[in-house]
């Protein structure tokens, strides 16, 4: 008796191994036995050493992180369609790893008692399982899924000194470009150019005999040593060094270092007597290791699918964690990470544009607002964005808007897929209030400036940190100019903006205690964003706007600029710059530790030193607040 839900489950499972090997009837039967489990972020599916559950799990939505208990080192991330926690059930042993929901996740729990008979009966399923469990097999399936079914990746653990090593199973190219020994150099150079590869394998009867890289052509042909009509045989490197294809990441790095080569040839059994399985380049390793921003940036720009971007973003988070552990200055870190975030958003816009049925009717600008606009978005926080499009005749306005709303909706959805949460106040480009033509935006911002009520101030404070992520910068520049011209004529706006900056409650109480939240879901937590970060960010905004500086969005940089502009307040401004970086770092650390936005902090989890550090920044917060209170005569404002 199948039902709508079990049909849907079967429909999902049939796309992924081992379920793709099942007959429709069997899968329908099995789907009926499934339990659907919703896991909140950071909740445990099973813990290390726990005796096996009655079911194994398939990720339907979200992601699950596998790690050793007690360490923050994530060994693997299971994505949509990945199977985990199966091996302990078959082997009847306890779980070797801890599985935790990395984000909000929906799991299908499949009872082993219903799955096992099918696995025993169906040879293809059996084979898939055997291959996945046996380490170092060369089956492409098991390479892709190794560690997921198997549960852990012990080989690479042994060698790894770097925590990022095990994160992604290494992918090597299996589409080989090969040639015969007798081929002319010119021919292969053309072929390499055509396929955009840096090396080519020379084979004889399907067995590898040599390799030619860009370097060989440069050193041996371009120097005039050999003519371009020479045969490949005369310039290739031979004999070649080969490795078995089950190589782990660490092993391949060692191999490259040992022989000082940049490409590894992988064969069926690791000798030159068997067929070539693939080539592994240094670039493949760098992408897999993911600790190099340049490589990540290139990977982002190459990504043509949103799903791929999602994987890269896991790498960015690891990079961030590594930087913080190595205590690299936060100014630099936030630059790099913002650059990567920006590039991801840009790529998402590009992908979304390519998926639209039509070209954009007029020029447009994609603005990132809030923390991303300020270049302070280290963790994946909310997305705040807006679209400005060129002015069009009135009769075309709604049709044009409709196009950009649709584009905005797609981009927003994709950004959500790669890990940027939706803005809870709907400040996103698919909202008609955040998708305007240039002259409409001028009207809207002018309205905010002339009627500075609390809501208008809140909106301006989010909007005025905008940054162009994609599209025509001149639209944004024109809007900025308009805003500045406007505020100069209405100085009262600054007073209101300053008052908005003072509205956030002070971080510490009379006895220099932390003020914690009184009620709600975050009762007894300290709200780092509202009580410490926002006051300092808001103060920077009003001060920099009053100086008509528009090109600087980053809070720390704003204070540095202010220190330059007002030498008499230099000390305070530099202290603010430092405090803003320190607070941001604090928030980022907390966020990485708990895999959330880092906004709320459990004070009892902080050590003495951390508390003192935090309190030191509060002093600066209070000082800058009193500065703007006096300067913008907030007291005179009837509140």
């Amino acid at each position, binding site marked *: 008796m199948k*039902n709508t839900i079990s049909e849907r489950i079967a429909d999902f499972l049939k796309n992924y191994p081992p379920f793709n090997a099942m007959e429709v009837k069997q899968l329908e039967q099995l789907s009926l036995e499934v*339990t659907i489990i919703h896991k909140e972020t950071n909740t445990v599916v099973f813990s290390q050493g726990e005796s096996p559950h009655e079911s194994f799990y398939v990720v339907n939505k979200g992601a699950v992180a596998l790690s050793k208990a007690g360490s923050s080192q994530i060994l693997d991330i299971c994505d949509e369609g990945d199977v985990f926690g199966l091996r302990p059930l078959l082997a009847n042993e306890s779980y070797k790893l801890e599985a935790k929901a990395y984000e909000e996740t929906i799991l299908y729990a499949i009872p082993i008692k219903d799955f096992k008979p099918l696995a025993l009966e169906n040879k293809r399923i059996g084979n898939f399982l055997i291959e996945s469990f046996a380490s170092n097999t060369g089956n492409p399936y098991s390479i892709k899924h190794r560690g997921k079914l198997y549960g852990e990746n012990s080989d690479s653990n042994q060698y790894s000194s770097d925590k990022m090593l095990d994160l992604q199973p290494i992918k090597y190219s299996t589409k080989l470009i090969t040639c015969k020994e007798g081929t002319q150099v010119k021919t292969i150079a053309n072929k390499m150019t055509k396929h955009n590869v840096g090396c080519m394998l020379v084979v004889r009867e399907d067995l590898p005999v040599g390799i030619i890289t860009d370097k060989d052509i440069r050193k041996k042909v371009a120097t005039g040593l050999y003519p371009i009509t020479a045969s490949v045989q005369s310039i290739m490197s031979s004999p070649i060094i080969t490795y078995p294809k089950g190589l782990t990441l660490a092993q391949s790095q060692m191999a490259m270092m040992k022989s000082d080569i940049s490409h590894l040839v992988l064969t069926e059994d690791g000798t030159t007597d068997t067929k070539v399985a693939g080539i592994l380049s240094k670039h493949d390793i760098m992408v897999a290791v993911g600790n190099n921003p340049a490589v990540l940036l290139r990977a982002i720009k190459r990504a043509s699918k949103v799903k791929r971007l999602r994987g890269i973003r896991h790498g960015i988070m690891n990079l961030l964690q590594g930087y913080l552990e190595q205590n690299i200055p936060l100014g630099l870190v936030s630059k790099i990470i913002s650059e990567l975030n920006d590039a991801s958003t840009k790529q998402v816009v590009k992908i979304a544009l390519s998926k639209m049925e039509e070209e954009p009717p007029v020029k447009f600008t994609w603005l990132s607002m809030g923390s991303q606009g300020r270049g302070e978005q280290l963790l994946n926080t909310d997305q705040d964005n807006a679209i400005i499009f060129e002015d069009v005749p009135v009769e075309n306005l709604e049709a044009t808007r409709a196009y950009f709303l649709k584009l905005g909706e797609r981009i927003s959805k994709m950004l959500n897929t790669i890990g940027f949460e939706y803005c809870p106040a709907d400040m996103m480009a698919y909202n008609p209030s955040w998708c305007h033509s240039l002259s409409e935006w001028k009207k809207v911002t002018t309205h905010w400036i002339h009627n500075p009520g609390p809501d208008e101030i809140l*909106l301006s404070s989010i909007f005025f940190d905008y940054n162009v992520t994609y599209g025509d910068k001149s639209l944004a520049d024109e809007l900025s100019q308009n805003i500045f011209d406007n505020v100069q004529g209405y100085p009262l706006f600054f007073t209101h903006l300053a008052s908005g900056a003072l509205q956030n409650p002070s971080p510490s109480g009379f006895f220099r205690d932390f003020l914690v939240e009184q009620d709600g879901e975050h009762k007894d937590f300290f709200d780092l964003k509202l009580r410490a970060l926002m006051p300092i960010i808001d103060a920077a905004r009003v001060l920099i706007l009053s100086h008509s500086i528009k090109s600087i969005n980053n809070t720390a940089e704003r204070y540095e600029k202010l220190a330059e502009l007002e030498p008499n307040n230099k000390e305070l401004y530099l202290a603010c710059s430092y405090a803003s970086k320190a607070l941001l770092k604090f928030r980022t650390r907390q966020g990485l530790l708990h895999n959330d936005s880092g906004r709320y902090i459990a004070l009892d989890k902080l050590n003495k030193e951390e508390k003192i550090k935090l309190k030191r920044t509060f002093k600066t917060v209070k000082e800058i607040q009193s500065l703007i209170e006096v300067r913008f005569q907030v007291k005179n404002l009837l509140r």
Partner: protein
Amino acid sequence: MWPFSKKKSLELPNFWWAYEEDFNEKLPESIHENTFVVLDTETTGFSLTKDRMLCIGALKLRDNTIVVKESFEVYIQQEHYDSESAEIHGILKHSKKSTISELEALKQFLEYAKNHILVGHHVIFDVNMMNAALKRNGLPKLKNKTLDTESLYIRTLLISSVVQKKERYALDDLAKKFSISRKDRHTALGDAFITAIAFLRTIEKLKPQKIKDLLR
């Protein structure tokens, strides 16, 4: 004592008494111990008097899990028939799905739902529809507590007078927001499933401590 109540209640069938019996038990306090019955009905239209339920779909949600086998899906025999809405739901009067009488459907649903909290998108409509059917069959109204996913969802949104909230949020809006596949829209159980996922994700955002925080 009301002189007629005894006589009248004697006419009620046994399954109703069993259902009433279920309410002697108090609901657990914590969210995780509660079973939620997420339901959706497909109807011939929106009129409580003229229109009829075509299908009832429901599933049970307990401690963040849904057991597929425990889902509920019945199709109801029709006299009243409206060709327009049949187009939406794809339920034809003489479709191959096996149907049962309205009374039998109600009986099975009451046995299934017990005293659990009913969750639905615009749940009041489903409850009213069900109550109208109960009345036709000489039965009292549903006794269950209810939760509406639309009003719960609205509670997750920020309060600001400038950023206009929409007046209504359809199930489609929620499915979009939470990236839930809308493939089985307009089958009762499919909609119930979408509602269940939307409910779970809303709960994660609201983080209520106790069941009474939700019911307020």
